[in-house]
């Protein structure tokens, strides 16, 4: 009795990343495009002339320092969660949330300084558009930071409930990615505004 042996070739598993992480990156791409559009509109309008040159409020420097520091603590939280140092993680993520909130509050002071410098959302004449751009861009970034702080609060709760550890890092990792992104986005906007006043 003969035996037919049939050999079936192996079907390769295609390359893949975690779909949720990947989706986060795509979301980041959309946010980048919104700000790319706003900053290009800014440049185009500026090149048309009649443009009020403004000084950035000093609080922007302070807030930049705050949000940079928060990125460091965020990274610290991530690294310690990876090594299962629960207490350090708790401390670091709480610090991050506090710093994030400080940034949100600090921006209010920054806008107050702008008003003191007589930069308004709607100014008296054709040159005031520069101020309108400044407010709209920083407000929109601020709204995104709110969403970032909400994510931070969620992550902080999960750390305190001991749900984030080296075995279960996805949430914290995505939180970190988003937070670092918001930091880099602010840096970009800050440097952009500094160079193109």
């Amino acid at each position, binding site marked *: 009795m003969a035996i037919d042996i*049939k050999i*079936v*070739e*192996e079907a390769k598993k295609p390359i893949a990343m975690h779909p949720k992480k990947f*989706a986060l990156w795509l979301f980041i791409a959309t946010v980048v495009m919104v700000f790319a559009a706003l900053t290009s509109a800014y440049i185009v309008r500026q090149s048309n002339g009649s443009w009020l040159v403004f000084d950035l409020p000093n609080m922007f420097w302070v807030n930049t320092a705050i949000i940079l520091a928060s990125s460091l603590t965020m990274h610290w939280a991530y690294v310690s969660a990876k090594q299962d140092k629960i207490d350090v993680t708790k401390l670091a993520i709480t610090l991050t949330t506090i710093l994030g909130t400080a940034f949100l509050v600090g921006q209010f002071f920054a806008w107050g300084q702008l008003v003191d410098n007589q930069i308004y959302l709607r100014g008296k004449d054709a040159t005031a558009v520069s101020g309108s751009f400044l407010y709209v861009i920083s407000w929109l970034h601020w709204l995104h930071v709110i969403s970032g702080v909400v994510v931070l609060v969620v992550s902080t709760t999960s750390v305190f409930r001991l749900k984030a550890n080296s075995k279960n890092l996805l949430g914290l990792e995505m939180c970190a990615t988003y937070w670092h992104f918001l930091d880099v986005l602010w840096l970009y906007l800050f440097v952009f505004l500094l160079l193109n006043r």
Partner: protein
Amino acid sequence: MATTDIHIHSDVHHHGDHDHEHEHHEGNFWTTYIFSQDHKVIAKQFLITGIFWALIGGVLSVIFRLQLGFPESNISWLKPLLGGWITADGKLDPQFYLALVTMHGTIMVFFVLTAGLSGTFSNFLIPLQIGARDMASGFLNMLSYWFFFISSVLMFISLFISTGPASGGWTVYPPLSALEQAISGSGLGMTLWLVAMAFFIASSLLGSINYISTVINMRTRGMSFTKLPLTIWAFFFTAIIGVLSFPVLFAAALLLIFDRSFGTSFFLSDIYINGEPLAHEGGSPILFQHLFWFLGHPEVYIVLLPALGISSEIIATNSRKPIFGYKAMIGSMLFIAILSFIVWAHHMFVTGMNPFLGSIFMLLTLIIAVPSAVKIFNYVTTLWKGNIRFTPAMLFSIGLVSFFLTGGITGIFLGNSAIDIQLHDTYFVVAHFHLVMGSASFFGMLAGIYHWFPKMFGRMMNEGLGQLHFWLTFIGVYLVFFPMHYIGIAGFPRRYYSWTNFDTFSGFTDLNMLVSSAAIATLAAQFIFLFNFFYSMFRGRLAPINPWNATTLEWTTPRNPGHGNWPGEIPAVYRWPYDYSKPGAKEDFIPQTVPYSETPESNLPHETKLIKLESSNGDNAIIVEGSH
């Protein structure tokens, strides 16, 4: 005689596999049909909403065509529908005419051909054709539909408010769209438009993010990028274009909202109303056009690419031939996608922009003709000497190729910045984009419905009615849009309420009558489709598992695939999707799930080499199944 199969199973872990147990798990009415997270149900929700909007959009266009074709006639019989928008002497209100044109454009471009087309077919086909149980995130997918629904409700409400819906054209250029004093529709109607579009953008982005991450991360074993059907490639590029361009529209809308409601002047300057200057100063309306068309031009490809993908699939299947130039098709779609971001200023040649810049945009624009021609060439060569089956889906796909060609050629005229001075904002442009975008994509959508109806509803649509629908629509479309070229070359501007008031412009009255009559007939023909669609849903002939003898994965699912799509394991894929009429093969198609080892009679030499006994990975188990 005994047969022994040796399967080499790799112990890969597949995302979808744990969902397995959920298959028989029945939800209640609300979770199954309304707040469903199943991609097939969401696809049908998009489809039904899209059809609803297409009807409304079609009716609006017929109303303004009545005005253009029969300006003298008394249309007070429309009073029950339009109420105060019909003047005392039975004429259409001129402001409402502009509202009709605006809403027709908005509805057709965004609600029907973006949400209705991508929403339906990306949702339905991506998981089924790449072999996934569902989308990457069912929840976001559901959210995507409900944002679209909210957007639809707002836009629908705006049709009925007393000041009328937005009336500044679908491109909502300021200052017209920014100032209530300009036209009554720029009041509440425009506000509703902007809010509705914000929801629409959110919906579209959620959808696109999901499509991209599903295509990249959830393909079944063996489904490499070079084995993806062209439909998936097209949906994939479409989603990428959407992710990159819709946020820019959002930015433009945001600045417009500030101008309208918070007194800023991003887009407004030097405006006098009744001799009084407005407070707005220093803005640039051209800036809005740049932002708008940075979305606007990619948007036309968001509308077209899915239709091109659908027709590639249908033409190959129904010619019983492999698609000609699979890689060239992918390459040209990629090239089109890239180019679509750097040609936007061809909509702005006459805004006073630097002629040198104009010639750069002209060059980039004309280059689009190259990948477009590659696609047309490949469609025709696929058809060439095929065993063509003229199913309704096939007819509509061939119709698409025809419109893409006739409409694309006029793009080359318009793309010349000098000729565009004469043609800009005339009926020539209207003819151009209705053929190349409107009709081509619409035909792609209809083709898709006829082709995948059996998978969506488990029944067949009536073929004779489908063919009748095709011929009436195909002839109707050409009768409507072809004469518009002549009207446009003669210099007739678009978005004018009436031409007969000027002697110079009353020359083409008879042609306009023909166009309007054809438009009415074409709309009427769509009711054949509607009847066929709803009747077949309940009474159609039961569909076989694979009615078109197609090769792709969706036809390996049960007649009515449940939640999770495949009752057992997800099939693996071994070959590309276009093995039609392969020389030596037993049948004229070989499904993607058939390994090369089972088709020694038709394998090409390099394919035989792909059959290997030993896997590269030592962890893989060898399972021997046999019987005596």
